[in-house]
């Protein structure tokens, strides 16, 4: 792999950029691998990268049914934050934020991590109490978060409407400075390039159609649209399709898949300095470096694999955006789209071994998996390599729905997060 640097850029500028290599190889699948990762999104590619870089396991294939980063990795709203209530969540998401801080250097790829701050608005007494509880819990866990008055919030984010007569007046906000955004495509491409450089095979247009198991139940490989591929271990990182893949191995999951929509506006000059979220009015917004406002809507109420959602869902979100930010009322929306997210009953992910020996699952990120991409891949690689979870993901088991030891961020946030 040729290192990307300002010198490489200068050299290529002198010769019409003819010397750049392909970022990752596209090999034919081998007959078998040590580890197969099902799903070439950010989490799957990160898992493969950390298997190779941290655990020396390089005989790895990432199987992607479409193209890498073409699923939810390319459909999310790119928010990074770690201000979760419970200890397990704070540990996992903050592990991820710490990796975001040095990720561009680690994988020699500019993922454009921008800690511009995440502001979560409080509109009523209940919101204020919940936000302050989160702030206290976060600070006990070493996660930065602080309380802002409406005036302080407006200092940070001038477009915010803090009028007392607003339909949902702003009573204050929680603010995590280390939160922000990153470039989602670059995350997939950067991990793919770094993994490929270490010998990982990235195999696109290869859908898994079955999971093969030996007589004693152990995984022996996967059936794919490009034939059978053997593996000692299989990690399923298939987001909205996790239930479908796991059913091939005979495991029924505590998951439901919902459409989640997002939309972007026409690009405008820089006008919106941070990420603003409001759980109460159900909206969040940031501005991409291209200048588009990036807006996330809620999920539809029904399960689906259609990658489309109802118009009334995004209308509802835009109503809220216009109420909070009157300057956006005449902004034109450019594109909207949907992705399929796998939601667990407690809205916390599952990063764990499964009842099937040699089969591991990384799923249930629901409406907020992008922020966790590096941390998720890092601890999932550890789980696969050691056949045992990392201390950080030890609580995110599949068995917690049997034992009742939930990590109930659903109750903590009372909203998609």
């Amino acid at each position, binding site marked *: 792999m040729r290192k990307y640097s300002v010198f490489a850029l200068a050299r290529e500028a002198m010769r019409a950029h003819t010397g750049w290599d392909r970022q990752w190889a596209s090999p034919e699948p081998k007959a078998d691998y040590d580890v197969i990762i099902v799903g070439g999104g950010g989490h799957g590619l990160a898992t493969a990268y950390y298997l190779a870089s941290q655990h020396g396991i390089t005989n790895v294939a990432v199987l992607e*049914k*479409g193209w890498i980063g073409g699923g939810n990795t390319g459909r999310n709203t790119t928010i990074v934050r770690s201000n979760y209530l419970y200890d397990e969540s704070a540990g996992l998401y903050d592990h991820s934020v710490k990796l975001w801080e040095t990720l561009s250097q680690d994988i020699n790829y500019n993922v454009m991590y921008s800690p511009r701050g995440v502001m979560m608005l409080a509109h009523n007494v209940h919101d204020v109490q919940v936000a302050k509880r989160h702030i206290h819990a976060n600070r006990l866990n070493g996660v930065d978060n602080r309380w802002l008055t409406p005036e302080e919030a407006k200092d940070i984010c001038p477009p915010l409407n803090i009028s007392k007569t607003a339909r949902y007046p702003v009573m204050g906000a929680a603010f995590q400075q280390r939160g922000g955004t990153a470039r989602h495509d670059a995350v997939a491409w950067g991990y793919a390039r770094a993994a490929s450089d270490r010998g990982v095979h990235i195999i696109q*247009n290869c*859908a*898994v*159609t*079955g999971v093969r198991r030996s007589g004693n139940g152990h995984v022996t490989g996967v059936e794919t*649209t490009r034939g059978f591929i053997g593996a000692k271990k299989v990690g399923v990182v298939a987001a909205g*399709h996790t*239930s*479908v*893949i796991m059913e*091939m191995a005979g495991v*029924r*999951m*505590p*998951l*439901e*898949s919902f459409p989640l929509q997002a939309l972007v506006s026409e690009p405008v000059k820089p006008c919106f300095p941070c990420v603003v979220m409001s759980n109460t009015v159900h909206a969040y917004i940031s501005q991409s470096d291209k200048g588009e406002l990036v807006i996330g809507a809620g999920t539809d*109420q*029904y*399960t*689906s*694999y*259609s990658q*489309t959602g*109802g*118009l*009334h869902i995004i209308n509802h979100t835009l109503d809220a955006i216009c109420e909070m930010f009157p300057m956006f009322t005449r902004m034109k929306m450019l594109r909207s789209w949907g992705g399929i997210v796998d939601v667990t*009953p407690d809205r916390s992910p599952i990063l764990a071994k499964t009842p099937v020996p040699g089969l591991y699952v990384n799923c249930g990120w629901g409406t907020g998996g992008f922020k966790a991409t590096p941390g998720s891949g890092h601890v999932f690689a550890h789980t696969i390599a050691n056949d045992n979870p990392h201390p950080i993901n030890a609580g995110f088991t599949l068995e917690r*729905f*049997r*034992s*009742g030891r939930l990590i109930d961020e659903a109750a903590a946030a009372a909203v998609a997060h």
Partner: protein
Amino acid sequence: MLLIHCPYCGEERPEVEFRQSGEAHIARPQNMADITDEEFEAFFFLRDNPKGVTFERWRHVHGCARFFNAARDTVTDKILMTYKAGLPKPDITLPEKTLALTVDPGVSGRSLLPGDAK
């Protein structure tokens, strides 16, 4: 937005009048205090989440307020039929033509079916 036929009102109404209430035909155990953790998990948390025909409960909250069931294709979101609560799960097999339209062998994760475009 879906248009949903309420089997009680006998009318097709917009989705905003309804609340989806999860997978249908999950019977609540009569002996809740006696069942094992595995049985409780299966009842309370585990879901089929199929890619294809799903059976789900809906409640016409802004109409008659009654619960009923629907069979829906989760690939197209097309509602195949609705029926009153308490009726048995209908035997629905998607006509082959619909399957050929909705199952993309390249991306669905399902194996090829007769009649699918190869």
